[in-house]
Every structure is written in structure tokens, then in C-alpha cells.
């Protein structure tokens, strides 16, 4: 219980820090972002949008930074994140709500598949080390781990969708066809295959390497040698003794890995015009839509923090020692 309370405390603290960074960044930058934008959009934005913009940055009155900071929190708790400039007159929250399910589906599924496959291959590569198959796994994983996500996406798009026409060229589903519910599900799955494959291929290597190294360390421990001496079956030693302990550090490394996968998925979405957060983040960056940009960063940070908290939770179930205190 103490462990989970401490993790909860950490969740709240990092949440506060991430949101404060989100607030302070535009104020640290030279020049007033709102002024820059108003100059940029001169004549292209209607008066309401300009008003929304100056509200979002607290431009209206010469308030102190601290007052602006308090107002920022007030807006977050009331769920009012202002208007998007790119998708004006849509509210930022509406734009986000449309995009979130796509990204959560893609990143969530991608992470689960990559984690499972990578971990299993990692076990094999540590267990059968010095066999040709296991030896080739490590350099292969290192290579796939070093491929830029967006580049692999582009090549897959070009070869499998454009040249061979096996897959659609982009989007989340076929917007032009009138479909029943099952056809729509089918269309969504069909559109998700390529982006998902890209994410799994590039993310898998990291899990493989982590698991392999953990497994190697564990296999050198005394209790494994003792288990062998007792004459336990290989299968039992491999999964119940070694893998179960080796998988624990994978959960502590989860935060870092998830950050990578999210970064990669954002780029993958851009390439596949996949209607998720990455795509609208890109749109907001090229059109300098600061309110939308801030809101996306805010949401992604909170989602990652929550996912981490969940990873910690699973960790506590898998390793009862952490619940008793200690690290």
C-alpha cells in the first residue's frame, strides 16, 4: 500500500510538473507568441478567433505571470482549452476527442504486440545463446531499433500500398463508402495494418534486447543453478524461474520505452495521414496553432503518466517485494 501511495504521489507531482512546463514554455520564448501569431494571421482570422487567441495567452490585460498561471489551472480544471485556430470554430477539446481514440488504439495495440513478441524473442535469444538463430537476433534487433519510424512508414506505404496496392494509401477508414457497422470495423482494421506493422517492427527490438540482457543476468544466479541441480524441466526453469524474474526490469523501463513508441507513432501517423494525435499535432505545428499544440502535449503527457502508473501497479502485483517497502 505504501508503495502505491508513493507512486500516486509521484504521478501527481509529475502531472503538475508537465502541466507547468506546458504553461511556462511559451512565456520563456523570446517575443510574445500571441503577438507573433496575430501578426502572422493578420486578416486571415476573424475577431472571435483573435479574441480566443489573446484569451489563451492571457494577453488582454497586463496580469502578473502568477495570476496567468492560476487562470491556466482554472481553465484546465473547467476543461476549457480554448479554440483551435486550424480547425476554427471547433474547440480544442472537440478536435482532441476526435483524434484520441485513433492514437490510443494504434499505440496501445502496437505496444502490446511489440512487448509480447519482443519479450518472447528475448527469452529465446538468451536461452539458446550461441545458436545461430539466437545470435542473429541481437544484431537484427539493434538494426530495427535504429530505423527512423517515418522512413520505414514511407517505404512500406510506397511498396505495399502504392506499388502493390495491397493496402490503402492513408486515413483511418474509407470515408466515402456508405457502410454497415461490420464493414466499417473491417475498413478500420484494413487501414490500421500498415501503421501498426511499422510500430511493431521498430518497437520490438528494444523489448527484445532488454529482456535478453535481464534473462542473461538472471540465468547466472544461484537459484537457477540450483533448479537445474534439482532436475527441474527446462521449460519450468525457463518460464517459471528465469523469465518471471527477468521481466521485472522491463516494467521499470516502461516509461522510457513508451515515450519512444509515442514519438514514433506520431511520425507514423503523419506519414499515413492517420487521423490521430500525431497528425493533428503536425497540422497544428505547421499552422502555428499554439492552443491545439499545448492541448495535445498536455494530453499526451497525462496519458503517458497514467500508463506509467499502471505499469507500476502491474509491477507491484508481479513482484510482491516492492509492496513491503524498499525500492
Amino acid at each position, binding site marked *: 500500500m505504501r508503495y502505491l501511495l508513493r507512486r500516486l504521489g509521484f504521478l501527481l507531482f509529475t502531472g503538475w510538473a508537465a502541466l507547468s512546463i506546458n504553461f511556462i514554455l511559451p512565456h520563456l520564448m523570446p517575443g510574445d507568441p500571441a503577438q507573433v501569431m496575430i501578426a502572422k494571421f493578420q486578416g486571415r482570422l476573424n475577431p472571435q478567433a483573435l479574441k480566443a487567441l489573446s484569451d489563451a495567452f492571457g494577453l488582454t490585460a497586463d496580469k502578473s505571470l502568477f495570476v496567468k498561471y492560476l487562470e491556466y489551472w482554472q481553465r484546465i480544471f473547467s476543461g476549457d482549452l480554448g479554440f483551435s485556430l486550424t480547425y476554427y470554430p471547433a474547440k480544442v477539446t472537440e478536435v482532441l476527442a476526435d483524434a484520441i481514440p485513433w492514437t490510443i488504439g494504434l499505440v496501445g495495440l502496437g505496444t502490446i504486440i511489440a512487448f509480447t513478441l519482443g519479450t518472447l524473442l528475448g527469452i529465446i535469444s538468451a536461452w539458446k545463446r550461441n545458436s545461430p538463430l539466437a545470435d542473429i537476433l541481437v544484431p537484427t534487433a539493434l538494426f530495427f531499433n535504429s530505423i527512423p519510424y517515418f522512413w520505414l512508414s514511407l517505404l512500406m506505404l510506397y511498396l505495399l500500398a502504392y506499388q502493390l496496392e495491397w493496402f490503402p494509401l492513408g486515413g483511418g477508414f474509407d470515408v466515402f463508402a456508405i457502410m454497415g457497422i461490420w464493414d466499417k470495423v473491417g475498413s478500420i482494421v484494413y487501414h490500421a495494418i500498415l501503421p501498426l506493422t511499422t510500430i511493431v517492427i521498430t518497437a520490438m527490438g528494444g523489448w527484445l534486447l532488454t529482456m535478453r540482457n535481464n534473462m542473461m543476468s538472471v540465468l547466472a544466479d544461484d537459484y537457477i543453478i540450483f533448479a537445474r541441480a534439482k532436475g527441474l524441466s527446462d521449460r519450468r526453469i525457463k518460464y517459471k524461474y528465469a523469465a518471471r524474474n527477468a521481466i521485472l526490469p522491463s516494467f521499470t523501463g516502461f516509461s522510457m520505452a513508451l*515515450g519512444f513508441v509515442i514519438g514514433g507513432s*506520431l511520425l507514423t501517423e503523419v506519414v499515413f495521414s492517420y487521423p490521430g494525435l500525431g497528425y493533428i499535432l503536425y497540422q497544428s505545428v505547421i499552422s502555428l496553432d499554439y492552443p491545439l499544440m499545448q492541448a495535445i502535449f498536455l494530453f499526451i503527457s497525462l496519458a503517458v503518466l497514467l500508463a506509467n502508473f499502471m505499469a507500476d501497479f502491474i509491477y507491484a502485483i508481479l513482484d510482491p517485494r516492492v509492496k513491503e517497502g524498499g525500492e
Partner: protein
Amino acid sequence: MSLNNIKLFIKNKKALFGAVILLLLLLVAIFAPLIAPYSPHQVDFAPSLPPSSTHLLGTTSLGQDIFSQVIWGTRLTLLVGFVTGVITSIIAIMVGLIAGYFGGWIDDLLSMITNVFLVIPGLPLMIILAAYITVKSVVPIIFVISVTGWAWGARVLRSQMITLKSRDFVKAAHVVGEHPLRIILFDIFPNMLGLIVANFFGAALYAVLSEAGLAFLGLGNVNAITWGTILYWAQNNQALLLGQWQWMAVPGMLIAILGTSFALLNFAVDEISNPKLRR
């Protein structure tokens, strides 16, 4: 690194392979003016030529020689990787060693900051930072990647510091009354060198991939020539749809190869300094 470790390094196939690739790319970067047949900015060729003997990788839509761009791009790409790797490592070493050595509230504070940076997703933060800064050179890009990338190393080095601190030789140095700075620099630091080197290559890999991603989104300085910006221009001129696939394939493949060499070195150094991973 003792002589023994250097022997292990040469015998380790992964380390050797990674080092050879990196050395080759370094040579290409150093001798870029000699290898590249044209200036990377020269625009007086026919646009969108396919690969030929005069233009090994064809020309861009603006009529620049792609091969020369790729060769010159090696310089800035490697520079971003190395400089960012060094800066990231320095931050990680300082934070990790200080937190691990002194413990107490210093450790609590530094670990808290480290964990915050570890958890906040890097690329979105980089995108936001790069969008606010006006990018006129690669310096802001190096800054942005370093700020977001040091936390993992700091965490690893901190735990190594805590392990080493409880070793007898460090305790002995303490009892003799040596200055903490001297203990850190001369007793502990040499024992962490393997980990620090491994961490440097990890950071360099992160930097190269991040630079490519930011450049691809048009957030770098798109007029500087790196492999990332070449990909940006290839994408913006629809290289693939125009059949200029080599414009897209070659720089991306080189990023992957450079990344693999960093990753191989990272992995191998880790393997050499941690005997449990060998066998």
C-alpha cells in the same frame, strides 16, 4: 579501460563491426569535399534525373546532385550525434554522480527531476520546443535534444554510483580522509567508464533519430544539409511518387546504418563491462 578490456573489445564482433562502420562514416565526413563531386548547393543540373554515372543518386527537383548532398550530409549528421551525445552524457554524469554519491535530500531532489524528465514523452516536448524557437542553425536542435534526452543515463549512473559507493576501496578512501571530489574522480569514475561510454553511444543514437524526426517534420533548419533534411525535401517533392525512390531510400538507410553502429557499440561496451552478459 585497461589493456584487457581493449583486447575484449577487439575480440567482440559487435564492437568491431560497429567501430568499423563508424570509422568509415567519420572518414566520409572528414573527406567530404574530396569525395563529393559537386557542391551540395549547386543547382545548375537538370532536375529529377535518375541515377547515372555523372549523378550516382540522380538529382533533386531543384537540380542538386543527391550523392553530393548525402556525402556532405554525413558531416552535420555525425556532428549532431556526437555533440548531443557529449552534452547529454555530461548532464547525465553530473546529475547521476552527485545524486548517487551524496544521497539524502540532494538525491531525492535530483532523482525527482530525473524521473519527471524520464516520464515526459521526449518527441512531443521536442516538437513543442522546436516550434517555439526560431531555428536558424543546428545549435537549437542540439539544445532541444539534449534537454529531453539526459534522464535515462542519469538514472543508470546513479544506481551504479550507489553500488560502487558501498565497495571497500571507496570506503577506505573515505576513511583515509580523501576529498569527495577526488574520490569521485579518481576512485569511482574509472570504474564507471564502461557504463559512461555505453551511455554515450545510446545518447548519440537517440540524437540522430530525433534530429531526423524533427527535420522530417520541417522543424529543423531545412537549409542545413543533414540526412534528415534530405529526407524532408525528398518527401516534400514527392520523391517516391515521381519514381525517385533512391532520394528517399539512401539517406534513410544511412541513418539506420549509423544508428546501428551506435547501438552495436552501446551493446558491446555494456557486454564487456558486465561479465554476466557474456558467456
